[in-house]
């Protein structure tokens, strides 16, 4: 029995050995070359200092460490309890620089630090505040407020700080938060349609680039939620760049895994049904594995690492190399040796593979790193698969192997053979598509950078909603001051703050956040020290100011001592400030940070900008050497347009290359154009169908168009080859094309169902285009009546 089995298997041993070898080589290669998942690889590269700043912020800025969370699906008190439990767990974990849910408070040590340095840090400190009239007004106000409910607080602070410098300082800490407070924590106001929602914001200690740490942070958040024993129905929503990096990577992987599994299963079922042979599966797998190996090796050699999405998607793309073994097997004439078939079809197969690789030029030339990897992967993989099909496959198969394909169903065959007589209808369809595109003024263009991000639409919508509710909208304008030292950066940010303060006062700007609100430059701190009177002067003025008020003589002794001490305090440095406590460090860190290449950068963040023109004018009049103003939207649009223009250029070069190759291979430009016509038609149909579906046309669609032109190149080539032949030969060619088209649809068609925008764009474009191109190739093939018998 075993010998019988071994005997029956022996003819297939070379094939199985080749597959095992390729599989092992692939695994080794992937283990050797690092697989990255940095999603910003799919963003266009910077073109200016402003876009470099923008991309750096997108890639590694403080904003990338942000996690936004919403809790819903339970009554408000329960949500508040969950929010508090979550906040405590996250703060205790030590993984977060800051956790805000409305219940956070400056620690006692932090309050003490701010209190000790209040006359250096508080913007309220001016010389006038310490003159007799200023003191008199403050003492009267203190007395009035002592009557009120806040008197226990005032009794503690008011006599040590009657001028209110500390309370003024604290206001800067609470002013930024406009989130509604209920049950002691933040709630979305008004509540979303899904019911009450408690809000929480966290900043991870790890940088945004560290995807592993970001994934752990998100996992920690979810675990803390589960540990807080949420009632049935309560949900945790998580968003933010960290969550994106972690969850988008996971979503893409899940998408690809699902598609890969599903399409492999469907493909296998389809091949088994059509060829009634398990052997066919092995035959198809060999060129595919070889293509993946060659493509991955090329990318690893060129880029050093392979992007996970490029690899996963590239493998799906190489799924079209199924065409080559299918063509080999289905083109075999009855009684012909496979090696002879391979030799016979090689010129056409070679041309098809080279043209497909040339079609990827636009991707390879793209300055979007992820796309370039993808393009290279496929451009190397496709010809490698063709070579293996031509030279290795016939040798690996046992001699005399005959895999017979089922004939096309008779009605389909008749319909396909009749298609050339319907070429009028085909031209009419193309004309209609062209007219439609003209009428709507070309395809809808996508200019939003966010749409290029691999993050699914639903995730981005949730992010926008949580940001709005938390009062942390996407930043519209980013102002940065770069300087050699922290002090110089702080001073620059202060000058920008001073220049923009009038805009806030007259409502052109909703608010302004910059480091100086929390930590002024040392120069400003020294100016404030200079405004403090000496002990004897202050005592005399205070006595004069308190005349007639019921304060006892010793009431303000602590104030007098503290002012005297403040005059000789060393100015607070960024290191002192950040060292005083986590909340202080987090607030300053978001606005002032050292640059990896040396120097410091301070950010000024305007919110709710109503008059962009006034902002530009105010900043233009300010001579500030290290100042960089980035208007996020125009800047990202310019980035997208530049990347699109470059892709268009790539498309032009790619088209010229494909046509040149065809003209050379078919010996004539006229024949090349005729062969390319069905593909151009497929592109046109894809464009019209996308517009009809309301899809916005992005960079990814554009490069997919050339991809589809390359992938479909074998259809008209093989059909044109059979045009003059007897009807069985023509049917064989038609059968090959039908099988190739269906296998392509089984791979790319499935991508159209992905949630990830990149995958969906490519899937949809290629699936529609390839179906159109195949039908057109069958219809536009030269009619047999004109061909020589």
């Amino acid at each position: 029995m075993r010998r019988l089995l071994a005997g029956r298997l022996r003819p297939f041993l070379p094939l199985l050995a080749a597959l095992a070898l390729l599989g092992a080589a692939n695994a080794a290669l992937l283990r050797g070359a690092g697989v990255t998942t940095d999603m910003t690889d799919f963003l266009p590269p910077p073109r200016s200092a402003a876009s470099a700043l923008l991309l750096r912020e997108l890639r590694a800025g403080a904003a990338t460490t942000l996690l936004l969370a919403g809790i819903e699906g339970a009554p408000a008190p329960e949500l508040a309890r969950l929010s508090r439990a979550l906040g405590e767990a996250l703060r205790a974990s030590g993984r977060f620089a800051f956790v805000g849910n409305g219940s956070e408070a400056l620690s006692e040590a932090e309050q003490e630090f701010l209190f000790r340095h209040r006359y250096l840090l508080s913007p309220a400190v001016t010389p006038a505040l310490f003159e007799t009239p200023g003191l008199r007004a403050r003492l009267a106000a203190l007395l009035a407020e002592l009557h009120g409910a806040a008197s226990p607080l005032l009794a503690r602070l008011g006599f040590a700080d009657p001028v209110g410098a500390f309370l003024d300082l604290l206001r800067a800490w609470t002013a930024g938060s406009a989130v509604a407070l209920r049950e002691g924590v933040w709630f979305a106001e008004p509540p979303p349609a899904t019911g009450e929602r408690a809000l929480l914001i966290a900043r991870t200690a790890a940088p945004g680039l560290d995807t592993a740490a970001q994934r752990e942070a998100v996992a920690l958040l979810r675990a803390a939620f589960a540990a807080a024993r949420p009632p049935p129905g309560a949900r945790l929503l998580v968003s933010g760049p960290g969550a994106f990096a972690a969850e988008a990577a996971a979503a893409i992987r899940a998408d690809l895994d699902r598609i890969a599994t599903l399409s492999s299963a469907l493909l296998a079922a389809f091949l088994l049904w059509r060829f009634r042979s398990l052997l066919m599966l092995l035959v198809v797998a060999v060129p595919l594995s070889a293509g993946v190996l060659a493509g991955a090796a090329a990318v690893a050699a060129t880029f050093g690492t392979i992007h996970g999405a490029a690899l996963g998607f590239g493998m799906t793309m190489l799924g079209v190399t199924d065409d080559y073994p299918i063509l080999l097997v289905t083109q075999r004439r009855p009684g012909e040796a496979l090696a002879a078939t391979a030799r016979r079809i090689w010129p056409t197969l070679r041309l098809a593979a080279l043209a497909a690789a040339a079609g990827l030029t636009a991707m390879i030339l793209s300055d979007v790193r992820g796309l370039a990897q993808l393009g290279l992967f496929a451009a190397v993989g496709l010809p490698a698969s063709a070579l293996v099909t031509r030279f290795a496959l016939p040798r690996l198969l046992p001699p005399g192997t005959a895999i017979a394909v089922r004939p096309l169903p008779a009605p389909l065959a008749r319909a396909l053979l009749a298609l050339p007589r319907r070429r009028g209808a085909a031209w009419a369809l193309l004309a209609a598509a062209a007219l439609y595109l003209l009428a709507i003024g070309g395809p809808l263009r996508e200019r939003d950078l966010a749409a290029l991000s691999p993050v699914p639409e639903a995730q981005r919508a949730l992010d926008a909603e949580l940001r709005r509710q938390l009062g942390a909208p996407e930043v519209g304008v980013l102002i940065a001051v770069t300087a050699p030292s922290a002090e110089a950066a702080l001073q620059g940010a202060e000058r920008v703050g001073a220049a923009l303060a009038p805009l806030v006062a007259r409502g052109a700007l909703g608010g302004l956040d910059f480091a100086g609100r929390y930590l002024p430059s040392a120069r400003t701190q020294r100016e404030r020290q200079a405004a403090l009177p000496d002990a004897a002067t202050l005592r005399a003025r205070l006595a004069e100011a308190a005349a007639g008020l019921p304060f006892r003589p010793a009431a303000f002794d602590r104030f007098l001592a503290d002012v005297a001490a403040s005059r000789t305090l060393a100015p607070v440095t960024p290191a002192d400030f950040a060292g005083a406590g986590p909340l202080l460090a987090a607030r300053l860190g978001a606005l002032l940070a050292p640059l990896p290449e040396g120097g410091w950068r301070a950010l000024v963040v305007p919110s709710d900008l109503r008059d962009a023109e006034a902002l530009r004018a105010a900043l233009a009049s300010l001579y500030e050497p290290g100042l960089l103003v980035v208007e996020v939207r125009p800047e990202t649009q310019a980035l997208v347009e530049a990347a699109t223009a470059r892709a268009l250029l790539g498309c032009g070069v790619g088209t010229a290359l494909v046509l040149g190759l065809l003209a050379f291979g078919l010996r004539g430009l006229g024949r090349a154009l005729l062969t390319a016509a069905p593909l151009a038609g497929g592109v046109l149909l894809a464009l019209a169908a996308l517009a009809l579906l309301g899809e916005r046309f992005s960079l990814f669609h554009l490069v997919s168009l050339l991809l589809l032109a390359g992938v479909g190149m074998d259809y008209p080539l093989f059909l044109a080859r059979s045009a003059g032949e007897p009807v069985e030969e023509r049917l064989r060619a038609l059968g090959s094309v039908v099988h190739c088209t269906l296998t392509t649809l089984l791979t790319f068609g499935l991508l159209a169902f992905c949630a990830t925008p990149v995958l969906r764009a490519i899937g949809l474009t290629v699936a529609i285009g390839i179906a159109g191109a195949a039908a057109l190739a069958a219809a536009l093939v030269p009619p047999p009546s004109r061909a020589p018998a």
Partner: protein
Amino acid sequence: MLRRPILRRRAALSLAALAAARLARAGEEPVAALLGAFAAIRERRAAFAEEKELPELDRPLRSHGTLSWRAPDRLEKRTAAPIEEVLRIEGETLTLERPQQGVRQVLGLDQAPELRPLVEAIRATLAGDLPALRRHFALAFAGDPAEGWTLVLTPLSPRVLAAVQRVTLSGRGAAILGVESQQGGGFTRLRIEPAR
């Protein structure tokens, strides 16, 4: 329409008196009986007059206004003179408004540790929430729940104790008539006159 809350309150009062009497007979602690009577009253209003003495001032500060309570957790103190001010505590949220200065502050109770013990003492008593009271204070009761009584509350947490040493509530039946608190060197006396 206008009469219904009054009717309900009377019904509640007599029920509470009955309950108090029965609990007292059963040998239950008098403080539990008193708080049971408080728990039965869902809404109340009162006028207040307040006197504060601070070590830094050579004379007391006087103010007056109104208090209102709505179960389970809403307490409002409106000062009418000499300054206008509204302090509202609902759940865990504290709102302080000074309309004349255009000031409106919203805080979590956690962020106002100086105010918390006073708020909890009055609120837990009005809500009749004995476990909450016991969580924050040591209790000493004297008098008769149905007649005059005093309840002395001493904060349990050393941190709170540093700010507020003692809160003394006094009253008659299910009504608080006075609150005295000792805060550091300062002393506050609140006289309450329930609205008819």
